[in-house]
């Protein structure tokens, strides 16, 4: 008797919690519809357009020397800017999370600057500084160094737009973890260097990797800032996104979409890695909180 009552009661409450079918249908349709329209459809379009004239034409797009050079330049810019930002991001978050100092909030704001400023404007700033008419122009010319409309400018612009990614991932995590483990390590006789490699770094490794992946994706996909400093010299200062634009403007749609599909694939790979890492970070999280209760 008692069981019957409790069963019916819980069944009743479950029904009360259940939304009517039409509400679910609307919410579901809206969500999926929006996602398809703005995300899935463009992605499908990129690959359909790229493969419109068959696989042969698709792969031919990558044999073009200009395309190869663009890919190479993108890889170079990424290979330089990401390690730089890894070191910078680690140093900045270490300083911000573990120490108290004057001007800390200014530093945090500065790190966010590239998020706040339009990439085109940051590109223009570099032109203003390093261009021939810029502040450092005469000195650079005297020493025969070209920054703007050359590879160094592209690297600089890429470093600038990607530098918040690593620091932004690490600061909250490091702040949450606090200083106790480092202090414990120092008290046990570890040097600062040993403490960093054995305690600090292992504790943030997944978040660090996450930040690096976001940095890579942004470095490879950056358009605005790089466009301003590059000068669009074909085969010389074109990165992959710039090359796509040129091809598109020349009505070479198959090649444009084929090269664009590279970036789309990169985005998908990033997404997959990002999700995998989020699981990793989630799995590592419960150990962050000390249990107050005996188990």
């Amino acid at each position, binding site marked *: 008797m008692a069981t019957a009552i409790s069963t019916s009661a819980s069944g009743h409450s479950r029904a009360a919690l259940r939304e009517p079918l039409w509400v679910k249908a609307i919410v579901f349709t809206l969500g999926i519809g929006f996602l398809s329209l703005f995300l899935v459809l463009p992605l499908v379009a990129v690959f359909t357009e790229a493969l419109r004239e068959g696989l042969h034409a698709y792969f031919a797009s990558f044999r073009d020397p200009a395309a190869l050079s663009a890919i190479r330049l993108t890889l170079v810019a990424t290979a330089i800017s990401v390690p730089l930002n890894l070191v910078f991001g680690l140093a900045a978050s270490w300083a911000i999370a573990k120490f108290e100092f004057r001007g800390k909030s200014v530093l945090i704001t500065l790190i966010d600057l590239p998020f706040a400023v339009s990439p085109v404007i940051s590109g223009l700033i570099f032109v203003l500084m390093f261009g021939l008419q810029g502040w450092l122009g005469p000195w650079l010319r005297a020493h025969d160094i070209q920054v703007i409309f050359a590879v160094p400018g592209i690297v600089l612009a890429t470093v600038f737009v990607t530098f918040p990614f690593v620091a932004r991932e690490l600061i909250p995590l490091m702040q949450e973890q606090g200083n106790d483990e480092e202090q414990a390590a120092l008290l*046990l006789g570890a040097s600062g260097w040993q403490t960093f490699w*054995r305690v600090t770094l292992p504790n943030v490794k997944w978040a660090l990797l996450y930040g690096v992946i976001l940095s890579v994706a942004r470095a490879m996909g950056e358009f605005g800032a790089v466009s301003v400093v590059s000068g669009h010299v074909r085969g010389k200062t074109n990165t992959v996104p710039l090359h796509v634009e040129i091809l598109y403007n020349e009505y070479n749609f198959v090649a444009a979409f084929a090269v664009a599909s590279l970036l789309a694939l990169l985005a998908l790979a990033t997404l997959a890695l990002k999700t995998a890492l989020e699981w990793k970070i989630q799995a590592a999280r419960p*150990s962050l909180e000390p249990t107050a209760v005996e188990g």
Partner: protein
Amino acid sequence: MSIEINRIHKSFGAYQALKDVSLNIRDGELVTLLGPSGSGKTTLLRVIAGLEEPDAHPETAIRFHGEDVRETQIGSRQVGFVFQHYALFRHMSVFENVAFGLRVRPRRQRPSKLAINSRVHELLKLVQLDGLAGRYPSQLSGGQRQRVALARALAIEPKVLLLDEPFGALDAKVRQGLREWLRRLHDEIHVTTILVTHDQEEALEVADRVVVMNAGRVEQDGTPEDVFHRPQSEFVMDFLGRVNVFHARIEDGRAWWDNVPLDVPGRFDHGQGQAHVYIRPHELEIELQRNGHPAIEANVTRINPAGAVAKVGLMSAAGRDIHVDIPLERLEVLALRPGDRVYLSPRKARVFVPEYVI
């Protein structure tokens, strides 16, 4: 190893956490620093460990075995430190945590793999966790984590063991067990130990000596018996154990709590004024009739016989709450009921005259 702390001042910005604190700790002693939060006890512990630097002051000194360690690197002080929230290395197994202090030694001083292995297992046996060497901190209970932290601190053969509210995050039953275990451990290994706590029961039970701190100063420094039975200030009296506080007036060199005369310690034989009377719940006698002794009237409001003693709540004629503990047998004899009129007389009372009152 003995520790000598001389005239430590420490401020954080405008806030003075320690105000001229001096303390001597003998070799092999177990001392607790007891005080409410904000009393500076943890700051003092961190200063001793080297985690905080004391303010510059001409006479400041921290001596380990007679030697000033203020310039000594934090890792070379050979201090074992146990944090309130354990601070275990979360990505290392229990074994690796305990081995850390040995592994990071310079190559020449580093024990062999085999020696590290046997030392770690020896320590894990000492803290009764030998079977859990392969676990990670997240897989342990709070009490187990704290024992790992202790084993880790002991691995470097510390000359001084500093414990910062080590059982603060654990529940009452586990605390009690670990407390007794810690005392036995100390009797076994005899390392000079300072334990910070805000739990007076813990302090009184574990320590050879209790240092009561308040607002950045040492209020009293003595054996547990001393601080409990012979408190030197109102603060210590109030902080240690339950207590009834009453107002009294001073007349003719005596304090008068209502019509009950009380002796005043010291030399307040002049003038009149106000004083505070502190009486512990077990130091009040309940009588059903006046028996010639001076006593004050009160009404019984509540009786709780659930415990080793009966807790009786009363209300004085002046409208003050009074707590009295009496043996259960006595409660039976008195046959008290809420609403009964009774007479209270103190067996013992402490009178504190505020210094500004003459």
